């Protein structure tokens, strides 16, 4: 089954919407839907890959209802650094379980603000393939809901510093690709989707290029060889930060 058909099945399933309101899922920005009889085999792996790609963040999760897999899931998740908290506590994402009224091919899909995101990175593509090949049809659905980032901390502008001097401020709302000369070399900054990142650099190790993209006030990327700093301007909430 392809992704869109999969999601359509889920979203139009008559058993799904009443369950949704019962589960009282809060306003969340994105959701991962997983159909599999053995969620403990796939959910931690998928979440790990999404986290590495910067598509999700945080480490605390809560179960909104229980399943036969709770203990196994908690064990495997905690090995990967995710901590289970009781539902009343603040958490970064919630996990709930339900049943479809028919068995379908196992699969997973990531939906953000109503749009299906393509998350078939190489690592996830091989996982998908292995699910299709080795798992039989399933009616067990695991929904992981991710909380939206607290808007108070989202940055508005990102500043570019060279040799300790601010040379430019970019608005995170505008998509831009800009090249800067630095220390006899070159650095390319990209602003897209309210995030800033370094996409190319003349430095030898390219740590700046591998650094996670910036979106929160105070976050920064440094290119030490080029004496270059990219920093999201702090909101008026703080003058500086430690830690």
């Amino acid at each position, binding site marked *: 089954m392809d992704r869109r058909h999969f999601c359509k099945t889920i979203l139009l399933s008559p058993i799904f919407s009443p369950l949704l309101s019962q589960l009282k899922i809060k306003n969340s920005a994105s959701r991962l839907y997983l159909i599999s009889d053995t969620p403990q085999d796939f959910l931690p792996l998928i979440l790990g890959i999404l986290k590495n790609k910067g598509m999700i963040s945080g480490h*605390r999760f809560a179960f909104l209802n229980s399943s036969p897999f709770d203990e196994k899931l908690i064990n495997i998740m905690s090995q990967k650094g995710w901590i289970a908290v009781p539902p009343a506590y603040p958490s970064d994402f919630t996990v709930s379980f339900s049943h479809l009224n028919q068995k379908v091919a196992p699969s997973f899909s990531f939906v953000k603000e109503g749009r299906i995101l393509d998350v078939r990175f190489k690592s996830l593509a091989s996982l998908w393939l292995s699910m299709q090949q080795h798992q039989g049809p399933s009616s067990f659905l695991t929904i992981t809901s991710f909380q939206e980032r607290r808007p108070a901390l989202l940055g508005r502008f990102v500043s570019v510093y060279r040799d300790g001097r601010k040379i430019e401020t970019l608005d995170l709302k505008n998509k831009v690709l800009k090249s800067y000369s630095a220390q006899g070399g070159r650095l390319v900054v990209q602003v897209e989707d309210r995030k800033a990142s370094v996409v190319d650099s003349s430095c030898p190790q390219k740590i700046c290029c591998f650094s996670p993209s910036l979106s929160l006030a105070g976050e920064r990327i440094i290119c030490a060889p080029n004496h270059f700093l990219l920093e999201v301007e702090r909101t008026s909430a703080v003058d500086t930060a*430690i830690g």
Partner: protein
Amino acid sequence: MAKKSYILLSLLLFLVLISCAPKKRWHSATFVYFDTVCEIKIFCSPSEFLSCQQEVERIFSEIESHFSPGLKNYSSSLVLNLYHKSLSIYKNTNGCFDITIGPLSRIWGFLNKSYSIPSQNEIDQALRLIGMDKIEEATGTLILKPNMELDWGGIAKGFGIDLAYNALESIGIERGFINAGGDLFCWGKNPENETWKVGINHPRDPGYLGILSLSTIAAATTGDYQRFFEAGGRRYHHVFNPKSGYPAQGKQSVTVIGPEAVICDALSTALFVCQYPEEILDRYIEYGAVIVDSEGNVSLWGKPYLFRLL
């Protein structure tokens, strides 16, 4: 008549001089020292800022050249000065803060970033070289036992910040902050004419744990997320327990606030290791701490400073 015109002339000269005085405004600069990004922001004239920045960089450079890992100049007055401060804190914290943990940094791979888990035997051998009581001071120099190594990482930045603040304060800078990658001194009022709002980075999530409101004071944070490696699903960080030889357990982040950056720096390390914060803070009554334990629970200790949890 002559007296009147003399007074008038003096007044005129005074007004002319006043209007010619260079205008003060906020300046900031960032530079890289101690393997981290350092930032200064001060209220002064443009020419003052240039000399201030140079002075701060000169001081940080000097600290780096005396206290970087592997350097063994034990006779300089700067080193002896910091040694005495370190010894006092070592005694007051029952050994939770200890600059002789160099061998531990080495065997866990933190010196050259070739991280690995050492054997119990290697740890036991390293522990035999640890303890500031093993250092002798004689005729203006320190004498270490063979194979002992000093690691000033838990105190040198704070020392540098105090020196830098003293230099700027004596030049006449009345408002500003110096932030060396997590160790900070702020003084006077912030650009909005209020107390300085200093965010403490959350030990796990992007964004802040909470916001401190500070006047003229220092603050330093030690965390298990600043330098670490992961192996077998476990995190091994750079803050060693000098008694066990392993990374200290039980905390994610410790922030100490108080009058001197050098003490905040060392105490944030000591409180990370120590089980009972009140035992240490009882000996440093001007200092307070924000501690995040391994479960993520936040608690305040010692002298209360204004902290708003987010």
